[in-house]
Protein backbone atom coordinates (compact mmCIF):
# COMPACT_ATOMS: atom_id res chain seq x y z
CA UNK A 1 0.00 0.00 0.00
CA UNK A 2 1.56 3.28 -1.11
CA UNK A 3 1.35 5.96 1.58
CA UNK A 4 -0.03 9.25 0.28
CA UNK A 5 2.65 11.90 0.23
CA UNK A 6 5.52 9.68 1.35
CA UNK A 7 8.57 9.47 -0.88
CA UNK A 8 11.92 7.82 -0.54
CA UNK A 9 13.50 11.30 -0.74
CA UNK A 10 14.05 11.44 3.01
CA UNK A 11 15.82 8.14 3.04
CA UNK A 12 19.16 8.43 4.80
CA UNK A 13 22.03 8.28 2.29
CA UNK A 14 23.56 4.88 1.88
CA UNK A 15 26.40 3.45 -0.14
CA UNK A 16 25.46 -0.18 0.21
CA UNK A 17 21.81 -1.06 -0.29
CA UNK A 18 22.63 -4.73 -0.78
CA UNK A 19 24.00 -4.79 2.76
CA UNK A 20 20.81 -3.44 4.35
CA UNK A 21 18.24 -6.12 5.21
CA UNK A 22 14.56 -5.46 4.43
CA UNK A 23 12.89 -2.87 6.68
CA UNK A 24 16.20 -1.59 8.06
CA UNK A 25 17.82 1.84 7.75
CA UNK A 26 21.48 2.80 7.98
CA UNK A 27 22.58 4.27 11.31
CA UNK A 28 25.89 6.08 11.83
CA UNK A 29 25.71 6.22 15.63
CA UNK A 30 25.54 3.25 17.97
CA UNK A 31 22.17 3.34 19.78
CA UNK A 32 21.85 1.75 23.22
CA UNK A 33 18.86 -0.46 24.01
CA UNK A 34 18.28 -2.70 27.02
CA UNK A 35 15.40 -3.87 29.18
CA UNK A 36 16.79 -2.65 32.50
CA UNK A 37 19.50 -0.57 34.16
CA UNK A 38 23.06 -1.01 32.91
CA UNK A 39 24.91 -3.36 35.26
CA UNK A 40 28.44 -2.32 36.24
CA UNK A 41 30.37 -5.57 36.21
CA UNK A 42 33.86 -5.30 37.70
CA UNK A 43 36.63 -7.29 36.04
CA UNK A 44 37.47 -8.91 39.38
CA UNK A 45 33.87 -10.13 39.70
CA UNK A 46 33.65 -11.33 36.11
CA UNK A 47 33.54 -14.97 35.10
CA UNK A 48 32.28 -17.00 32.17
CA UNK A 49 30.84 -20.49 32.59
CA UNK A 50 30.16 -23.13 29.97
CA UNK A 51 27.33 -25.45 31.01
CA UNK A 52 25.64 -28.57 29.70
CA UNK A 53 22.13 -28.33 31.12
CA UNK A 54 22.55 -27.60 34.83
CA UNK A 55 26.10 -29.02 34.89
CA UNK A 56 29.05 -26.58 34.73
CA UNK A 57 31.74 -27.76 32.27
CA UNK A 58 34.34 -25.04 32.78
CA UNK A 59 34.61 -21.56 34.27
CA UNK A 60 37.13 -18.88 33.28
CA UNK A 61 38.00 -15.76 35.23
CA UNK A 62 38.87 -12.53 33.39
CA UNK A 63 42.61 -13.24 33.12
CA UNK A 64 42.07 -16.83 32.03
CA UNK A 65 39.52 -15.81 29.43
CA UNK A 66 41.75 -13.07 28.05
CA UNK A 67 44.54 -15.61 27.65
CA UNK A 68 42.44 -17.44 25.02
CA UNK A 69 43.19 -16.68 21.33
CA UNK A 70 41.85 -13.24 20.31
CA UNK A 71 40.19 -12.90 16.90
CA UNK A 72 39.15 -9.75 15.02
CA UNK A 73 35.69 -9.63 13.50
CA UNK A 74 34.37 -6.61 11.58
CA UNK A 75 30.71 -7.03 10.70
CA UNK A 76 27.48 -5.23 9.86
CA UNK A 77 24.98 -5.44 12.73
CA UNK A 78 21.18 -5.27 12.56
CA UNK A 79 18.92 -4.23 15.46
CA UNK A 80 15.27 -5.29 15.44
CA UNK A 81 14.33 -1.64 16.11
CA UNK A 82 15.27 -1.19 12.43
CA UNK A 83 18.76 0.29 12.46
CA UNK A 84 21.69 -1.30 10.71
CA UNK A 85 25.28 -0.26 11.35
CA UNK A 86 28.06 -1.15 8.92
CA UNK A 87 31.56 -2.43 9.69
CA UNK A 88 31.51 -2.61 13.48
CA UNK A 89 35.01 -3.71 14.59
CA UNK A 90 35.16 -6.22 17.44
CA UNK A 91 37.82 -8.42 19.00
CA UNK A 92 37.15 -11.38 21.20
CA UNK A 93 37.28 -15.12 21.61
CA UNK A 94 35.56 -17.26 19.00
CA UNK A 95 33.04 -19.70 20.45
CA UNK A 96 35.07 -22.35 18.58
CA UNK A 97 38.13 -21.42 20.67
CA UNK A 98 36.14 -21.49 23.92
CA UNK A 99 34.91 -25.00 23.13
CA UNK A 100 38.42 -26.10 22.14
CA UNK A 101 39.85 -24.79 25.42
CA UNK A 102 37.19 -26.73 27.32
CA UNK A 103 37.89 -29.81 25.20
CA UNK A 104 34.20 -29.96 24.40
CA UNK A 105 32.33 -31.05 21.29
CA UNK A 106 28.87 -29.42 21.30
CA UNK A 107 26.75 -31.94 23.22
CA UNK A 108 23.42 -30.60 21.88
CA UNK A 109 22.22 -28.45 18.99
CA UNK A 110 21.01 -25.51 21.09
CA UNK A 111 22.29 -22.97 23.58
CA UNK A 112 20.99 -20.33 25.93
CA UNK A 113 23.29 -17.36 26.48
CA UNK A 114 23.16 -15.96 30.03
CA UNK A 115 24.00 -12.47 31.26
CA UNK A 116 24.84 -10.85 34.62
CA UNK A 117 21.49 -9.02 34.68
CA UNK A 118 19.51 -12.24 34.26
CA UNK A 119 18.95 -11.72 30.53
CA UNK A 120 18.90 -14.83 28.37
CA UNK A 121 18.67 -15.49 24.64
CA UNK A 122 18.67 -18.74 22.66
CA UNK A 123 21.04 -19.38 19.74
CA UNK A 124 21.42 -22.67 17.85
CA UNK A 125 24.92 -24.17 18.00
CA UNK A 126 25.29 -23.98 14.21
CA UNK A 127 25.02 -20.17 14.47
CA UNK A 128 27.81 -19.97 17.05
CA UNK A 129 30.47 -22.28 15.61
CA UNK A 130 32.60 -22.34 12.41
CA UNK A 131 33.81 -18.80 13.08
CA UNK A 132 30.33 -17.28 13.08
CA UNK A 133 30.23 -15.91 16.63
CA UNK A 134 32.47 -14.74 19.45
CA UNK A 135 32.50 -13.47 22.98
CA UNK A 136 33.60 -9.91 22.25
CA UNK A 137 35.95 -8.12 24.66
CA UNK A 138 36.96 -5.06 22.62
CA UNK A 139 35.12 -2.62 20.36
CA UNK A 140 37.18 -0.32 18.13
CA UNK A 141 40.24 -1.66 19.93
CA UNK A 142 39.04 -0.57 23.39
CA UNK A 143 37.24 -2.33 26.24
CA UNK A 144 33.50 -2.48 25.52
CA UNK A 145 31.69 0.18 27.57
CA UNK A 146 29.00 -0.96 30.05
CA UNK A 147 26.25 0.56 27.85
CA UNK A 148 27.29 -1.67 24.99
CA UNK A 149 27.60 -4.82 27.09
CA UNK A 150 31.09 -4.68 28.57
CA UNK A 151 33.14 -6.28 29.97
CA UNK A 152 32.08 -9.03 27.51
CA UNK A 153 29.15 -9.55 25.19
CA UNK A 154 28.11 -12.24 22.77
CA UNK A 155 28.48 -11.29 19.10
CA UNK A 156 26.29 -13.18 16.63
CA UNK A 157 26.27 -10.56 13.87
CA UNK A 158 24.18 -12.46 11.32
CA UNK A 159 21.14 -12.50 13.64
CA UNK A 160 19.18 -9.51 15.02
CA UNK A 161 21.29 -7.89 17.69
CA UNK A 162 19.14 -8.87 20.68
CA UNK A 163 20.77 -12.30 20.20
CA UNK A 164 24.18 -10.73 20.93
CA UNK A 165 23.62 -10.75 24.69
CA UNK A 166 25.25 -7.92 26.68
CA UNK A 167 27.07 -8.52 30.00
CA UNK A 168 27.55 -12.18 29.09
CA UNK A 169 28.49 -14.59 31.86
CA UNK A 170 27.70 -18.00 30.43
CA UNK A 171 26.67 -20.26 27.62
CA UNK A 172 24.49 -23.25 28.37
CA UNK A 173 23.88 -26.17 26.04
CA UNK A 174 20.21 -27.14 26.12
CA UNK A 175 18.46 -30.26 24.83
CA UNK A 176 15.73 -28.23 23.11
CA UNK A 177 15.53 -24.75 21.61
CA UNK A 178 14.45 -22.87 24.77
CA UNK A 179 13.17 -19.32 24.24
CA UNK A 180 15.05 -16.61 26.13
CA UNK A 181 13.97 -13.23 27.54
CA UNK A 182 12.69 -11.46 24.41
CA UNK A 183 11.72 -14.71 22.70
CA UNK A 184 9.27 -15.26 25.59
CA UNK A 185 7.96 -11.72 25.12
CA UNK A 186 6.83 -11.77 21.51
CA UNK A 187 10.09 -11.77 19.56
CA UNK A 188 11.11 -14.37 16.98
CA UNK A 189 12.69 -17.62 18.13
CA UNK A 190 15.53 -17.37 15.53
CA UNK A 191 15.79 -13.74 14.33
CA UNK A 192 17.28 -13.74 10.83
CA UNK A 193 17.29 -10.10 9.63
CA UNK A 194 17.39 -11.14 5.95
CA UNK A 195 14.09 -13.00 6.42
CA UNK A 196 12.73 -10.20 8.66
CA UNK A 197 12.12 -12.56 11.55
CA UNK A 198 11.34 -9.82 14.05
CA UNK A 199 8.29 -11.05 15.92
CA UNK A 200 6.95 -14.48 16.76
CA UNK A 201 4.33 -14.51 14.00
CA UNK A 202 6.91 -13.79 11.28
CA UNK A 203 7.61 -16.83 9.08
Amino acid at each position, binding site marked *: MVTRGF*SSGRRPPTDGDARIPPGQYLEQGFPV*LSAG*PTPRVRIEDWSFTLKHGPRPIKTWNWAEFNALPLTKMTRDIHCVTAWTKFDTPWQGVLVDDILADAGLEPPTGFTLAHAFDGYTTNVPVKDLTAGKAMVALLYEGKPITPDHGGPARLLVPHLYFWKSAKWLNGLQFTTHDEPGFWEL*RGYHIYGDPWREQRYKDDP
Partner: protein
Amino acid sequence: MSDAAAVQSPWQTVRIVRIEKRTPRATSFFFQPSRPFAYRAGQHVDVRLTAPDGYQARRSYSIASAPETNDVIELAIEKLDDGEVSPFFHEVAAIGDEIELRGPLGGHFVWPEDENGPLVLVGGGSGVVPLMSMVRHRAAQNSSVPVVLVFSARVWDEVIFRDELITLDDRQHGFDLVLTLTREAARRPADYSRRVDVAMMAQAMARLPEPPGLAFVCGSNAFVSAAAQALIDAGVAAQNIRTERYGV
Protein backbone atom coordinates in the same frame (compact mmCIF):
# COMPACT_ATOMS: atom_id res chain seq x y z
CA MET B 1 -12.13 -18.25 1.53
CA SER B 2 -8.90 -19.97 0.52
CA ASP B 3 -6.36 -21.16 3.05
CA ALA B 4 -3.92 -18.53 1.87
CA ALA B 5 -6.38 -15.78 2.72
CA ALA B 6 -6.81 -17.21 6.20
CA VAL B 7 -3.17 -16.40 6.97
CA GLN B 8 -3.55 -12.80 8.04
CA SER B 9 -0.77 -10.32 7.46
CA PRO B 10 0.51 -8.99 10.76
CA TRP B 11 0.15 -5.51 9.23
CA GLN B 12 -3.17 -3.75 9.19
CA THR B 13 -4.35 -0.57 7.54
CA VAL B 14 -5.31 2.16 9.99
CA ARG B 15 -6.95 5.51 9.22
CA ILE B 16 -6.05 8.81 10.85
CA VAL B 17 -9.25 10.12 12.44
CA ARG B 18 -7.91 12.96 14.60
CA ILE B 19 -4.75 15.02 14.95
CA GLU B 20 -4.02 17.05 18.05
CA LYS B 21 -0.96 19.21 18.63
CA ARG B 22 0.33 18.53 22.15
CA THR B 23 3.44 20.71 22.33
CA PRO B 24 5.51 22.64 19.78
CA ARG B 25 7.34 19.41 18.87
CA ALA B 26 4.90 16.61 19.73
CA THR B 27 1.59 15.87 18.03
CA SER B 28 -0.91 13.12 18.77
CA PHE B 29 -2.25 11.09 15.84
CA PHE B 30 -5.36 9.01 16.46
CA PHE B 31 -5.73 5.89 14.32
CA GLN B 32 -8.81 3.79 13.74
CA PRO B 33 -7.80 0.15 13.33
CA SER B 34 -9.43 -1.96 10.62
CA ARG B 35 -9.57 -5.02 12.84
CA PRO B 36 -9.76 -5.49 16.61
CA PHE B 37 -6.68 -4.22 18.41
CA ALA B 38 -6.28 -5.35 22.02
CA TYR B 39 -3.17 -4.18 23.84
CA ARG B 40 -1.65 -3.64 27.26
CA ALA B 41 -0.64 -0.30 28.72
CA GLY B 42 3.01 0.37 27.84
CA GLN B 43 3.15 -1.55 24.55
CA HIS B 44 4.25 -0.11 21.23
CA VAL B 45 3.47 -0.50 17.54
CA ASP B 46 5.48 -0.52 14.34
CA VAL B 47 4.39 1.94 11.69
CA ARG B 48 5.24 1.39 8.01
CA LEU B 49 5.21 3.95 5.22
CA THR B 50 5.57 2.95 1.56
CA ALA B 51 6.86 5.22 -1.22
CA PRO B 52 5.67 4.89 -4.86
CA ASP B 53 9.02 3.28 -5.75
CA GLY B 54 8.40 0.55 -3.19
CA TYR B 55 10.78 1.90 -0.56
CA GLN B 56 9.46 1.33 2.94
CA ALA B 57 10.39 3.00 6.20
CA ARG B 58 9.31 1.65 9.57
CA ARG B 59 9.59 2.99 13.08
CA SER B 60 8.34 1.98 16.50
CA TYR B 61 6.06 4.28 18.49
CA SER B 62 4.64 3.80 21.97
CA ILE B 63 0.88 3.86 22.44
CA ALA B 64 -0.40 6.78 24.55
CA SER B 65 -4.03 5.73 24.81
CA ALA B 66 -5.44 3.41 27.46
CA PRO B 67 -6.29 -0.20 26.52
CA GLU B 68 -9.88 0.62 27.47
CA THR B 69 -10.17 2.98 24.49
CA ASN B 70 -8.78 0.64 21.85
CA ASP B 71 -11.28 1.63 19.15
CA VAL B 72 -8.87 4.50 18.50
CA ILE B 73 -5.11 4.20 19.06
CA GLU B 74 -3.25 7.36 20.02
CA LEU B 75 0.42 7.77 19.13
CA ALA B 76 2.15 10.96 20.27
CA ILE B 77 4.95 11.52 17.79
CA GLU B 78 7.82 13.89 18.39
CA LYS B 79 9.29 15.55 15.31
CA LEU B 80 12.92 14.69 14.68
CA ASP B 81 14.31 17.09 12.08
CA ASP B 82 16.66 14.55 10.54
CA GLY B 83 14.12 11.74 10.67
CA GLU B 84 12.28 10.23 7.74
CA VAL B 85 9.05 9.05 9.40
CA SER B 86 8.27 11.67 12.06
CA PRO B 87 8.57 14.60 9.55
CA PHE B 88 6.06 12.77 7.33
CA PHE B 89 3.56 12.74 10.16
CA HIS B 90 4.17 16.35 11.13
CA GLU B 91 4.29 17.84 7.63
CA VAL B 92 2.19 15.60 5.39
CA ALA B 93 -0.22 13.32 7.26
CA ALA B 94 -3.85 14.47 7.34
CA ILE B 95 -7.15 13.18 8.66
CA GLY B 96 -8.42 10.41 6.41
CA ASP B 97 -4.95 9.18 5.42
CA GLU B 98 -4.21 5.50 5.76
CA ILE B 99 -0.95 3.95 6.90
CA GLU B 100 0.11 0.46 7.89
CA LEU B 101 0.52 -0.52 11.52
CA ARG B 102 1.61 -3.67 13.28
CA GLY B 103 1.20 -4.63 16.89
CA PRO B 104 0.82 -4.50 19.74
CA LEU B 105 4.49 -5.27 20.43
CA GLY B 106 6.64 -5.68 23.50
CA GLY B 107 5.87 -7.80 26.55
CA HIS B 108 8.16 -6.32 29.19
CA PHE B 109 7.54 -2.60 29.53
CA VAL B 110 3.85 -3.15 30.36
CA TRP B 111 1.48 -2.50 33.25
CA PRO B 112 1.81 -5.62 35.43
CA GLU B 113 -1.05 -8.16 35.36
CA ASP B 114 -0.68 -8.70 39.11
CA GLU B 115 -0.66 -5.27 40.70
CA ASN B 116 1.93 -6.02 43.32
CA GLY B 117 2.67 -2.81 45.18
CA PRO B 118 2.93 0.83 44.09
CA LEU B 119 4.60 1.86 40.83
CA VAL B 120 7.14 4.55 40.07
CA LEU B 121 7.02 5.90 36.52
CA VAL B 122 9.84 8.10 35.25
CA GLY B 123 9.64 9.75 31.83
CA GLY B 124 11.92 12.12 29.97
CA GLY B 125 10.36 14.19 27.17
CA SER B 126 8.32 12.01 24.82
CA GLY B 127 9.37 9.06 27.01
CA VAL B 128 6.19 9.88 28.92
CA VAL B 129 4.05 8.33 26.15
CA PRO B 130 3.93 4.66 27.27
CA LEU B 131 3.67 5.88 30.88
CA MET B 132 0.65 7.98 29.88
CA SER B 133 -1.04 4.81 28.68
CA MET B 134 -0.40 3.30 32.12
CA VAL B 135 -1.71 6.39 33.94
CA ARG B 136 -4.84 6.44 31.78
CA HIS B 137 -5.29 2.69 32.26
CA ARG B 138 -5.11 3.15 36.02
CA ALA B 139 -7.76 5.87 35.86
CA ALA B 140 -10.01 3.88 33.50
CA GLN B 141 -9.81 0.85 35.79
CA ASN B 142 -10.40 2.93 38.90
CA SER B 143 -7.33 1.11 40.17
CA SER B 144 -6.21 1.79 43.72
CA VAL B 145 -2.54 1.00 42.99
CA PRO B 146 -0.55 4.04 44.14
CA VAL B 147 1.43 5.55 41.28
CA VAL B 148 3.90 8.43 41.18
CA LEU B 149 5.00 9.82 37.82
CA VAL B 150 8.22 11.83 37.66
CA PHE B 151 8.16 13.66 34.33
CA SER B 152 11.18 15.62 33.15
CA ALA B 153 10.79 18.15 30.35
CA ARG B 154 12.91 21.04 29.24
CA VAL B 155 10.24 23.73 29.66
CA TRP B 156 6.61 24.01 30.83
CA ASP B 157 5.29 24.20 27.27
CA GLU B 158 6.96 20.91 26.36
CA VAL B 159 5.15 18.96 29.09
CA ILE B 160 3.13 16.58 26.90
CA PHE B 161 -0.37 15.79 28.27
CA ARG B 162 0.18 18.52 30.88
CA ASP B 163 -3.44 19.52 31.56
CA GLU B 164 -4.67 15.93 31.68
CA LEU B 165 -1.88 14.89 34.06
CA ILE B 166 -2.47 17.85 36.38
CA THR B 167 -6.21 17.10 36.43
CA LEU B 168 -5.50 13.49 37.44
CA ASP B 169 -3.01 14.68 40.05
CA ASP B 170 -5.57 17.09 41.52
CA ARG B 171 -8.07 14.26 42.06
CA GLN B 172 -5.83 12.90 44.84
CA HIS B 173 -6.88 9.32 44.10
CA GLY B 174 -3.45 7.79 44.57
CA PHE B 175 -1.83 9.26 41.45
CA ASP B 176 0.92 11.79 42.09
CA LEU B 177 2.57 13.91 39.43
CA VAL B 178 6.07 15.30 39.94
CA LEU B 179 7.20 17.66 37.19
CA THR B 180 10.78 18.72 36.77
CA LEU B 181 11.83 21.33 34.23
CA THR B 182 15.48 21.34 33.23
CA ARG B 183 15.54 24.78 31.56
CA GLU B 184 12.88 26.74 33.43
CA ALA B 185 11.76 27.48 36.95
CA ALA B 186 9.17 25.15 38.49
CA ARG B 187 5.56 26.36 38.16
CA ARG B 188 3.87 24.26 40.85
CA PRO B 189 4.89 24.33 44.53
CA ALA B 190 6.21 20.78 44.85
CA ASP B 191 7.83 20.57 41.42
CA TYR B 192 11.52 20.83 40.57
CA SER B 193 13.72 22.63 38.08
CA ARG B 194 16.73 20.37 37.64
CA ARG B 195 17.69 17.04 36.12
CA VAL B 196 16.44 13.90 37.87
CA ASP B 197 18.63 12.80 40.76
CA VAL B 198 18.60 10.51 43.77
CA ALA B 199 17.08 13.10 46.15
CA MET B 200 14.21 13.71 43.72
CA MET B 201 13.57 9.99 43.38
CA ALA B 202 13.63 9.49 47.16
CA GLN B 203 11.19 12.38 47.65
CA ALA B 204 8.92 11.10 44.89
CA MET B 205 8.85 7.61 46.39
CA ALA B 206 8.13 9.10 49.83
CA ARG B 207 4.75 10.11 48.39
CA LEU B 208 3.88 6.40 48.08
CA PRO B 209 2.42 4.54 51.09
CA GLU B 210 5.05 1.80 50.72
CA PRO B 211 8.13 1.12 48.58
CA PRO B 212 7.34 0.49 44.91
CA GLY B 213 7.05 -3.02 43.48
CA LEU B 214 8.24 -1.91 40.05
CA ALA B 215 9.70 1.14 38.35
CA PHE B 216 9.28 2.00 34.67
CA VAL B 217 11.73 4.42 33.06
CA CYS B 218 11.45 5.70 29.49
CA GLY B 219 13.31 8.32 27.49
CA SER B 220 16.62 8.90 25.74
CA ASN B 221 19.46 6.59 26.67
CA ALA B 222 21.19 9.34 28.66
CA PHE B 223 17.99 10.12 30.57
CA VAL B 224 17.19 6.46 31.26
CA SER B 225 20.73 5.75 32.45
CA ALA B 226 20.66 8.69 34.87
CA ALA B 227 17.13 8.02 36.12
CA ALA B 228 17.68 4.26 36.58
CA GLN B 229 20.88 4.92 38.53
CA ALA B 230 19.06 7.50 40.69
CA LEU B 231 16.36 4.92 41.46
CA ILE B 232 18.97 2.31 42.37
CA ASP B 233 20.75 4.82 44.62
CA ALA B 234 17.38 5.62 46.22
CA GLY B 235 16.94 1.96 47.12
CA VAL B 236 15.05 0.36 44.22
CA ALA B 237 16.46 -3.06 43.28
CA ALA B 238 17.85 -3.16 39.72
CA GLN B 239 15.73 -6.19 38.83
CA ASN B 240 12.58 -4.19 39.63
CA ILE B 241 13.44 -1.43 37.14
CA ARG B 242 12.17 -1.80 33.59
CA THR B 243 13.55 0.51 30.94
CA GLU B 244 12.66 1.57 27.44
CA ARG B 245 15.26 3.60 25.57
CA TYR B 246 14.92 5.46 22.30
CA GLY B 247 18.36 4.14 21.50
CA VAL B 248 20.18 7.47 21.13
